[in-house]
């Protein structure tokens, strides 16, 4: 269990962000209230078969990559060329798009952390990175050529497994950096990104590792997008920049997006001793399940228990709550009311980064943790963009006799929901993410003061 006195610092971060060349541009665009959601030309090509066509997608070119199209199979990236020479061809050959982003994010994180080669390649350095989906883009081709075209299994190439297996991002990072510690993935749907960082935090907190590369990824794939489109839960009817609108009364679904967020974690005293720049300190991580048997519907009781686990010591009050805030009708209102139930009606603000870049699925929790770290660095709260009108009426579920939460409508909490970024003293941010299956995760991260 936890080793007394052992703390965990975040000393590096990096990744892949829609419509941004890197972390600096991401930082700038977020804090100037910009939306990174765009009309997706690839989705538009299938507009007769698809309901939503907006996304926070990322192209190969934006990441300095070029796809090598397979001569045998149409529109299938056999491998990628790194035009900036960051990743060797051998490593690229075993990676799908998301794994390439994961490797780039890991390189950036290690560089920012300032770890030596010896430290990085140590038995005390682990990799805990995962994604929400399978390697869908890769699998589609393998299956199509086998089942529909009757081709031999080998026609899809020798890299179907390493480019699509569940822990491909972790495996590719470990092979690139030659780490010798734990290498594994945590998978928990849209809580994956935070779940991996939470697990890595525990490995260090419990004394099993001194350093870890951790995070979550969701590589651009229409194959992934159409699954959610088919559920008819994606935003529809707004301009791209207005499509993701957590807490707004007219929200009608989330924006399916893609991205990667990778962080470098290190035992606090070790980081301090070598003079590392400490971006944030993880105070606590807690996760649980709703336990109500429902795959999709959010649970107020589950989220109440989540907050109880996150704040065993009531001294750990956040200045900002980084919400899961997907822009789905029920999810947002249950979440807002559970936060008010846990923290009261004032003394904090809500921030919903998905309002600016959509829902990155397996990448969401980790990219949004990076936005929390940027809030700590910039001392500015990120907005809930497009939260133009909060419901002045109580929600239907609030009228149920079983409801035990706040009885005011969402509009009563307008003062907690900023529409623009603004300056504020921020010492601690709570980060929330939930996933299908009723999984809930929460992390508290502080400034090192």
């Amino acid at each position: 269990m936890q080793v007394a006195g052992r703390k965990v610092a975040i000393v590096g971060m990096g990744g892949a962000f829609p419509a941004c060349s890197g972390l600096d541009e991401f930082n700038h665009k977020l804090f100037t209230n910009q939306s990174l959601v765009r009309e997706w030309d690839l989705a538009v090509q299938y507009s007769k078969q698809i309901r939503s066509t907006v996304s926070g997608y990322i192209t190969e070119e934006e990441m300095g990559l070029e796809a090598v199209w397979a001569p045998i199979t149409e529109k299938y990236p056999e491998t990628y060329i790194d035009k900036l020479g960051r990743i060797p061809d051998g490593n690229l050959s075993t990676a799908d798009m998301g794994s390439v982003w994961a490797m780039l994010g890991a390189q950036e994180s290690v560089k920012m952390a300032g770890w030596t080669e010896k430290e990085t390649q140590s038995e005390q350095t682990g990799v805990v990175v995962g994604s929400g989906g399978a390697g869908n883009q890769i699998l589609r081709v393998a299956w199509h050529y086998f089942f529909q075209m009757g081709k031999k299994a080998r026609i899809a190439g020798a890299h179907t497994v390493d480019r699509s297996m569940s822990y491909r991002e972790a495996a590719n990072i470990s092979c690139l950096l030659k780490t010798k510690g734990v290498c594994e993935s945590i998978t928990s749907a849209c809580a994956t990104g935070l779940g991996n960082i939470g697990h890595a935090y525990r490995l260090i907190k419990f004394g099993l590792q001194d350093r870890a590369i951790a995070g979550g990824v969701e590589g651009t794939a229409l194959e992934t997008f159409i699954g959610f489109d088919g559920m008819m839960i994606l935003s529809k009817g707004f301009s791209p920049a207005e499509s993701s609108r957590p807490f707004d009364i007219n929200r009608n679904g989330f924006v399916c997006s893609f991205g990667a967020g990778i962080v470098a974690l290190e035992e606090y005293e070790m980081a301090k001793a070598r003079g590392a720049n400490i971006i944030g300190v993880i105070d606590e991580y807690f996760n649980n399940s709703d336990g109500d048997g429902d795959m999709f519907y959010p649970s107020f009781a589950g989220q109440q228990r989540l907050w109880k686990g996150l704040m065993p010591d009531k001294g750990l009050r956040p200045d900002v709550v980084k919400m899961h805030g997907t822009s789905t009708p029920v999810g947002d209102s249950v979440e807002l009311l559970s936060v008010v139930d846990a923290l009261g009606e004032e003394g904090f603000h809500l921030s919903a980064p998905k309002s600016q870049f959509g829902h990155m699925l397996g990448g969401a929790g980790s990219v949004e943790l990076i936005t929390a770290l940027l809030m700590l660095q910039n001392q500015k709260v990120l907005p809930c963009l497009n939260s133009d009108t909060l419901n002045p009426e109580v929600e239907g579920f609030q009228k149920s006799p079983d409801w035990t939460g706040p009885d005011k409508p969402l509009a009563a909490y307008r003062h907690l929901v900023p529409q623009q970024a603004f300056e504020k003293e921020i010492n601690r941010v709570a980060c929330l993410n939930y996933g299908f299956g009723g999984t809930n995760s929460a992390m508290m991260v502080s400034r090192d003061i």
Partner: protein
Amino acid sequence: MSNLKNYKQKMERQEILDGLLEVLRTVRTIDPARLEGVTEETDFLTDLSTPSTELINIAAKVEHKFDIEFEDDDIDRMGSKVKDIIDLIIMVKERGENQ
């Protein structure tokens, strides 16, 4: 006649080698510099440092390039030298023509 036959065979092997080199230039895990001066005696694994998993991809690309289809047993039995793959291509082509 036998000289002409030998000449034809030699030309055919050269054409196949040229085609094979075109395929190998598309394989990102093979250093292009190592493809200078490739002969039939060049070994994929030891001379070109080709990852063994890549031989399967090369075989698939060769099938596409030369419009042939290997049996799985052909690939299982194939050696790792350039001449082995040329022999295999010729054998499979002839097998196809005889059928």
